[in-house]
């Protein structure tokens, strides 16, 4: 049997590769970055919502399952540059430091993932101009490494705000979808801050809280156990105050129907999920259709979310839309099973 190509080494790709190996199928696992684990590893995710489990406890077993499987041929810093269809399967050209050239594969799992929204595009929030306006993907690393200090002066912040839906649910920037995890991750970050530093005041500015399903528990806990405060309404612009020492968040409290101006030491932007660069490239490379949002579209999103509609190409994880890690892992398993069936013929 020719190996199954798994493109992408994030949670979905790692899960698919491990699952395929457990079924006895040879796997060719290709990742363009120089590490396994995708975005969670890239940004050093701290605890994971909603169970506040350290990200390592989820990522490390995934990676070690893959590394311990002799059936999996792994390549970091490697990309697929060309694809040709065969009567059954594909011929793919790999480019990387360890391996280059054409390989035959029996089927393909695309687990090419997402990119975080570039918050500079919402210029009114001053990200990239004011050092204490931080994207929440960077904030993950800060709490993970226990360096909760203001980039501008190294002091411990006294009051932090989270602003949800930055680059999500926003027709203006062309991203009308919900990122699904921004609410939970922001609330989780506020809880982590309050766990370590109960003296820090934490506010979450929201227009809706979407801690869907069982994740709602985190939302309630954040209020009644950790004292996180919620303000219904968005910050519309961020400026500097007190000679650049603090940030001034101008917004509307839409429950009181009053404009508000609050000084903060740090403001964290919950940047949304966009189709990843790898996902866009894969769509072009394999000639797959993308939806109006730019994500890959399964042929039957209800009945079979892991099949692309093109024989032998299967989809998993955030390549088809914003997704939490457990969902990406599950889809990796589903795609693995379908790819295995296709490879067996």
């Amino acid at each position, binding site marked *: 049997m020719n190996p199954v190509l798994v493109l992408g080494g994030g949670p979905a790709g790692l899960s698919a590769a491990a699952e395929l190996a457990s079924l006895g199928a040879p796997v060719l696992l290709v990742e363009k970055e120089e590490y396994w684990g995708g975005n969670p590893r890239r940004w050093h995710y701290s605890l994971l919502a909603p169970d506040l489990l350290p990200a390592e406890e989820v990522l490390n077993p995934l990676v070690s399952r893959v590394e311990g499987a002799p059936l999996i041929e792994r390549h970091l810093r490697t990309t697929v540059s060309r694809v040709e269809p065969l009567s059954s399967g594909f011929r793919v050209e790999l480019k990387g430091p360890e391996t280059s050239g054409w390989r035959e594969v029996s089927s393909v799992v695309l687990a090419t993932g997402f990119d975080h929204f570039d918050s500079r595009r919402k210029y009114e929030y001053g990200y990239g101009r004011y050092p204490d306006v931080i994207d929440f993907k960077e904030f993950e690393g800060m709490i993970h490494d226990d360096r909760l200090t203001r980039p501008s002066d190294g002091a411990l912040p006294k009051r932090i705000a989270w602003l949800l839906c930055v680059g999500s649910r926003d*027709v203006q920037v062309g991203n009308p979808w919900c990122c699904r995890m921004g609410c939970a991750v922001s609330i989780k970050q506020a809880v982590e801050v309050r766990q370590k530093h109960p003296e820090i005041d934490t506010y979450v500015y929201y227009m809706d809280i979407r801690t869907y399903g069982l994740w709602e528990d985190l939302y309630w806990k954040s209020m009644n156990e950790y004292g996180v405060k919620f303000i219904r*309404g968005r910050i519309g612009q961020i400026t500097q105050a007190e000679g650049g020492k603090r940030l001034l968040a101008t917004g*509307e409290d839409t429950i009181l129907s009053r*404009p508000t101006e609050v000084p903060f030491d740090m403001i964290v932007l919950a940047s949304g999920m966009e189709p990843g660069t790898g996902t866009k490239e894969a769509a072009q490379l394999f000639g797959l259709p993308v939806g109006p949002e730019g994500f890959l579209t399964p042929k039957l999103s209800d009945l079979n979310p892991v099949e692309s509609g093109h024989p032998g190409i299967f989809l998993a994880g955030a390549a088809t839309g914003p997704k939490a890690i457990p969902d990406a892992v599950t889809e990796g398993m589903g795609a693995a099973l379908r790819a295995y069936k296709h490879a067996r013929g």
Partner: protein
Amino acid sequence: MSVVAHLPHRTPTLTDTEAAHPPALELTGRRPLTAEERRTAETIFGEFRADGRYREYVLGCLNCGECTTGCPAARFYDFSPREMLQIAAVGDATTLWDAMQEKIWACCQCYTCNMRCRFGNDIAGIISVMRELSVRHGLESTRRVLAPFNRSLTLLMTVGTQVASDMIQPDFFRDWGPFAAAGEKSWDADPHLLRQAIPIDVLQTTTSSWEVSVQTSLELFRIYEEAGVLDMLRGLDPDLTEMLIDIIEERREEFEEARTRYHSQLAAMHGPVATFSG
């Protein structure tokens, strides 16, 4: 009938009897509509929802409040673009009527709300539709609100600008605050002179660039007449409308005289020429 039903945001209709015997005044804090006002409110509501621009401007609202954040009027008045859009989207005849009394005139039509809106609503646009309706129906409150702006309105209708150069002075614009007034002194120059020095690239002084030719003025007025703007204004302020017509009549005569003079001069120089009609 329970009092709650008569809160302003919940009352779809009031019968004439109910309007004559106001319920729950202490709760709503506003005078109930008379039967005639109620009829006008219903008509305005119907026209508002049927307006072709409505579907284009009012798309949906997540109530995020970013429009109000950037709104200069919201900083000074009890005004919120978010509230105006909500009224436009889900309000009834009474809520729309209430909003059209004074609130719509707090908007400065800067369109910052539109720029900020993540849903792409045209909030300033829908407010201008409300303003148009309030003028068209000659609402008493609109008359009252617009009364102090007669000079601006006259200029707008006759020459197309809202202010004349002599109006740009601290005395006219108290909201400039002390700095503008102090600045005038510290520059130690006649503000008139300073303003004249601004548009170097076009070699136009502000005085000359503000002058409007009589043809432009007449053409502008003709557009107002044909587009029904003059009729709209007549409903609101008949006296002002008559005055405007007088001003324009004078200009028309002035123009006719000038044209006759021009033609007779031409004839004296070159003999009779074909004249243009109209």
